[in-house]
């Protein structure tokens, strides 16, 4: 690697980390790229991470140093494109190996216009985030010493003001999409806030046709499709930024249609039922988070990717109860609603990447549908 391929990541606190430019960052016309710096401790599944729309607006650090070992496998993508703002690892593999592999990670990042930096002391970056919380950062187009007077101040100001904005609007689908199951027994409305394909796949596999709706669809339009169940997808950003959507979700309360929310969907459902959310210091991102089911005292290892959480105490006991908590920091991981046939999970039962241990939640959703006399489709 030539020295002129050196690049820099500047953090909101002024710290600079150097590495080797990769992906779009290596392009000649590269302009400064901003994002909220977060880390994931997931050791496999870099493709799923890259293509998870929930990372919109974020620069993602892989704490595991060796990324891209098995190359690009498009069938494992969670979305057709990459939404994250930047990607950082110790090493991107230049000569990947896997029977399904079709290309290198650097090639993919270049194709998708994603700036990336390798050769970084990612552990140190992670330690900073752990201590200070998720913070904005920028891939600098020039090295700090080459910056003209004022340029640096401008960058620092931008960093200070950086916020992930319009995240859901940018990653949700633009139209209604039908994903049909092989032998469908149910019809599920799928509210796409920036969804991972894995959820749709899990529903299809459970025997449900899935109709995916853009995030800003109204409740009445969705209801007009007469679904057996409503799935609220994952997605990026702060749930508090989406009051109009949670209001629409609230309208489902009367319908008695079973609802299942995952991640952002879980948060929006909770807000619609009067709960509040909080920002976690540096979030939960990885495939090793223990979740305790309070009802059964069973523990599950889960896949997680969220920076916000429902404040469990803000749920009215008459409305819902927290059913699952994170065994590390005791934050809310699952909710069961009392007046509506709904439940939700903060983590990712669809895995992709990560452990498949909680896939049974999809079965429970289907059971709820059955219990509500669902399977409209069959009648």
């Amino acid at each position, binding site marked *: 690697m030539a020295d002129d391929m050196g690049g820099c990541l500047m953090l909101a606190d002024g710290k600079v980390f150097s590495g080797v430019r990769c992906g779009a960052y290596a392009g000649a016309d590269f302009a400064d790229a901003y994002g909220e710096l977060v880390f994931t401790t997931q050791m496999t599944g870099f493709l799923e991470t890259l293509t998870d729309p929930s990372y919109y607006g974020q620069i993602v650090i892989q704490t595991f140093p060796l990324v891209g070992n098995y190359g690009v496998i498009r069938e494992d993508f969670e979305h057709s494109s990459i939404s994250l703002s930047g990607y950082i690892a110790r090493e991107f593999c230049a000569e990947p190996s896997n029977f399904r592999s079709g290309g290198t990670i650097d090639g993919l990042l270049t194709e998708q216009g994603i700036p990336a930096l390798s050769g970084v002391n990612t552990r140190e970056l992670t330690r900073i985030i752990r201590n200070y919380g998720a913070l904005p950062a920028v891939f600098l187009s020039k090295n700090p010493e080459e910056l003209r007077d004022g340029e640096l101040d401008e960058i620092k100001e931008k960093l200070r003001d950086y916020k992930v904005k319009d995240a859901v609007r940018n990653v949700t689908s633009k139209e209604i999409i039908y994903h049909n199951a092989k032998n469908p027994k149910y019809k599920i409305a799928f509210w796409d806030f920036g969804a991972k394909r894995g959820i749709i796949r899990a529903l299809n596999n459970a025997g449900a046709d899935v109709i995916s709706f853009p995030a800003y669809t109204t409740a009445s339009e969705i209801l007009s499709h007469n679904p057996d169940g409503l799935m609220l997808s994952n997605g990026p950003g702060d749930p508090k930024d989406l009051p109009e959507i949670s209001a629409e979700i609230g309208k489902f309360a009367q319908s008695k249609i079973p609802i299942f929310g995952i991640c952002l969907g879980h948060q929006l459902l909770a807000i619609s039922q009067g709960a509040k959310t909080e920002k976690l210091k540096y979030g939960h991102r990885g495939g*090793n988070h223990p979740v305790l089911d309070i009802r059964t005292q069973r523990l599950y290892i889960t896949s997680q990717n969220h920076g916000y959480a429902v404040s469990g105490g803000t749920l009215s006991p008459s409305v819902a109860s927290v059913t699952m908590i994170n065994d590390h920091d005791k934050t809310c991981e699952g909710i069961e609603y009392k007046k509506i046939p709904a439940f939700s999970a903060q983590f990712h039962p669809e895995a992709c990447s990560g452990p498949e241990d909680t896939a049974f939640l999809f079965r429970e959703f289907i059971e709820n549908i059955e219990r509500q006399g669902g399977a409209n489709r069959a009648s």
Partner: protein
Amino acid sequence: MPLNPEIKKVLVIGSGPIVIGQAAEFDYAGTQACRALKEEGLSVVLVNSNPATIMTDANMADAVYIEPLTTDVIKKIIEIEKPDSLLGTLGGQTGLNLSMELAGEGYLAERGIKLLGANPETIDMAENRESFKKMLERIGQPSIPSGVVTTSEGALRLAEEIGYPVIVRPAFTLGGSGGGIARNPEKLREIAKNGLRLSPIRQVLIEKDISGWKEIEFEVMRDGSGNVITVCSMENFDPVGIHTGDSIVVAPALTLSDKEYQMLRTASLRIITELKIEGGCNIQFALYPHSFDYAVIEVNPRVSRSSALASKATGYPIAKIAAKIAVGYRLNEIRNSITKKTNSCFEPALDYVVVKMPKWPFDKFIYADRKLGTQMKATGEVMAIGATFPEALMKAVRGAEISMSTLNLPALGDKTDDEIRAALGSKNDTRLFTVFEAVKRGFTYKEINDITKIDPYFLGKLKDLVNMENKLKAVDTEFVPDSLYLAAKKSGYPDADILKISGAKIREKLYANYKTVDTCAAEFAAETPYFYASYDDVNEAADYIDHHNHTSKRVIVFGSGPIRIGQGIEFDYSSVHCVWAFKKLGYEVAIVNNNPETVSTDFDISDRLYFDPLTGEDVMNVIQTEKPEAVIVAYGGQTAIKLTKFLHLNNIKIFGSSAESIDLAEDREKFDHVLSECGIPRPDGRTARTLAEALGAARELGFPILLRPSYVIGGQNMVLAYSEDTVENYMNLILSQDIDSPVLIDKYLQGIEAEVDAICDGTDILIPGVMEHVERAGIHSGDSMAMYPAKTLSGRIVDTLVEYTRRLASSLRSIGLLNVQYVIYNDKVYVIEANPRASRTVPYISKVTGLNMVEIASRVILGEKLKDMPYGTGLYKKSKYVAVKVPVFSFEKMKGVDVQLGPEMKSTGEVLGIDRDFETALYKGLLAAGYSMQSDGGILITVQKSDLAEMLPIARKFKQLGFRIYATDGNLRFLEQNGVKAEFVAKIADSDENTLTLIESGRVQYVFSTSELHQTAYKDSIKMRRKAVEMRIPCLTGIDTATTLADCLLSREKYEDFVPLDIVKMHGGSD
């Protein structure tokens, strides 16, 4: 569920002596378990026959039995101790088999003893091939097409069905003993026959050969409530076909996509759930590299070598958690002792990569078959941690102590491409280097992969190293450019190699910084200082020291590296005690070691653990960060001792005997000078650098003579010569190996060997005890049975030993421990060698005398005087107990190795028999070492001419016992001339009914055979002895061993009802 209130007293079974396939990892596991149980306030009873373990220390359990690991003995202990529970999943296959036998007989149930960790049905499901396959079928997990057979004919029929090649795996054997790959019926017949014999239940598995598939392992935990996690995945660099114990292994798995990874992870969880294991479990998979096809290879329903590796690789203490689960805890009720903030129910996230590399004994067994296959051959291993695979691999290679610091094996440089291509096909201990050479020469990944099946990912990473070396070679400036130097350091290159490859200078030397192993990839702040070197720019160890600066009194203890013949677990024992002693004395103690199997590399033994190689540059890095008052080299065997010169040159203070003092003992000429000053005789000796010099020396000294290179460990390359032929062969061999030190030639005195470990304070010495060897000089001390106290030595001789030791201690200016080996010949005492460091016998003598030798030595090192301590000076009072150390070998694992003992050490482990009288102690020792102690049947005797006279009384003793004696012509004639009736047996070439078929027939219970050493493996006597080993028939290769055994059998009424002894009570309470 918290602690099960029904559990009050737990019996823990250890794994016994170190053998290939079952090494120090079980001391690590057992020690962790004992500590975890004691932490819960439970009463712990421990039984293990291996004295060189930390777990058999008196303070590790409430009662400690160093007794033979047989069901009878364990029953006796149960009768005495009346435990309510038995934990058998932490003592390797040995502990598991014993637990299962006890449970199977109904013995445990009768007494209401709970079997913790796993139940017999579970163990059977995992270990019995047939039920294993059924279990997999039941939960929809694929197994390898296979079947179980109990006859060779059955094996052949099954192989026809599933197609060759097939793998033969005997049921219930350690490390896969007796297995192999058969490509045709002839080979299959041979392997199956052998495997059936070795299997205690006479079963072998015949299965389709899936060589070349990826070999992936998962370490899995489950608690009693059914919560399951995976601790770590591991991937073998060497695909299926080479035993995982002989493979280079990386953690985590590096070439799996998330789909593949989750597929196998989910399978692991389903298996452990089905087996209802409460604790840890190891699951091995074969994954076809070109599809999602996979097969479950094996499940170990217990902690294992892999779980020790996984624990060290992740920081997750599997054995400790398994013990807590076994007594009732749920995973989330157990604190993560590294983060101290989270619970143990999570999966460790790594932000580095770990490489494990095996350590093979081929340097010792030069005639051994170096081919690697399904039979494990490694005696030990090293682990290395780095940010990238190349960095970790480079650390592993230089830490393995195989005289390599890069992957460039000089011997390969001269080979042609065709020779390299051919070499790629042979799976042996130099395979990594051959593959590297092929990558260097530009062989395509495809070609290398076709031959070796090594994943192209790894080949690409080797290419990274080739590229780095090319960049270094291309340097044409005076100095290596700074950025290239840093990149080379990050790729794992030592400074010396950077200088050598680039031919340029280093402008400013870089010292390593340290990163933390924290189980969580920095997600949470870790409290536990477990570090590895890195060339990134933040030093977490230095920060840690700044923030926890309790004292400036800091020392570093250097550990003993990988386990090998001659340097085993004993040195880890001493290293750990050294750490504890210095902690007690108010020091902060750091340890450097790279052996993942050991107690010393458990993160809560020292104040700071540096998991890195023990080379000069690597330890200087630690010294730069730690800034210790001094370092300690005396406890880490030759690995640590050989750092002395380097440390001295770098002005690092060494606690204990100084560099000069160590040099005085190791340098032949200087040592001779010391001896003559002290007026201590030694066997006459010379040094030689050429064949002519050697032959000249032989003539002057007169045969027999001992030859060895100077600076030896465990008698490496040592030979006893009776003729000029042997000298000639030997010198040619040594000179061809480029060994850069002269050969020492000593007159061989065939006397009684005695050994003394002393503690020296500069004025006085304390000798806890004198040991006498059963075998006369000429058999390596590590391979001799040793008796404490000395049995036959007169008071005058013992006084002389004490006096000579005192003089040596003073002249060598030894501080701390000193080990001296003596030979008593014609009633005169000679010194053979002196080592100013902890020896192999320290744990044994400490345990039997009750003196914590390492602790006393450590206090002395810091200036305390022996006369101010309560132990006295000179020879310590004799213990009321007698102890006999008996060596244990792993010959069945090492094809082609002659089992006859000689000056070169061959044993891998040892056991101890302790009792009030010699006969009982000896009996216990022999029983523990695996002798069945059968006192009737037959014995085959074929000794060399020079041994005939001494053989006679032994034959008479066996006759007296009622044995039928078989002998070949010369021996037979001699016996009959002397009135001992024996039966004729033909030599191998002379008849189809010969010594081999006699051994196979089961009519002989012992083989007594001697011949001149160092002949080729084709000789009849060697074949015969190998046959005995394969048939698990004790093979006596020394006159004294045979005499002792016969005497022991004759006195059996004395020990028949022996009582197991609790060594805690023996010395009146703990400590």
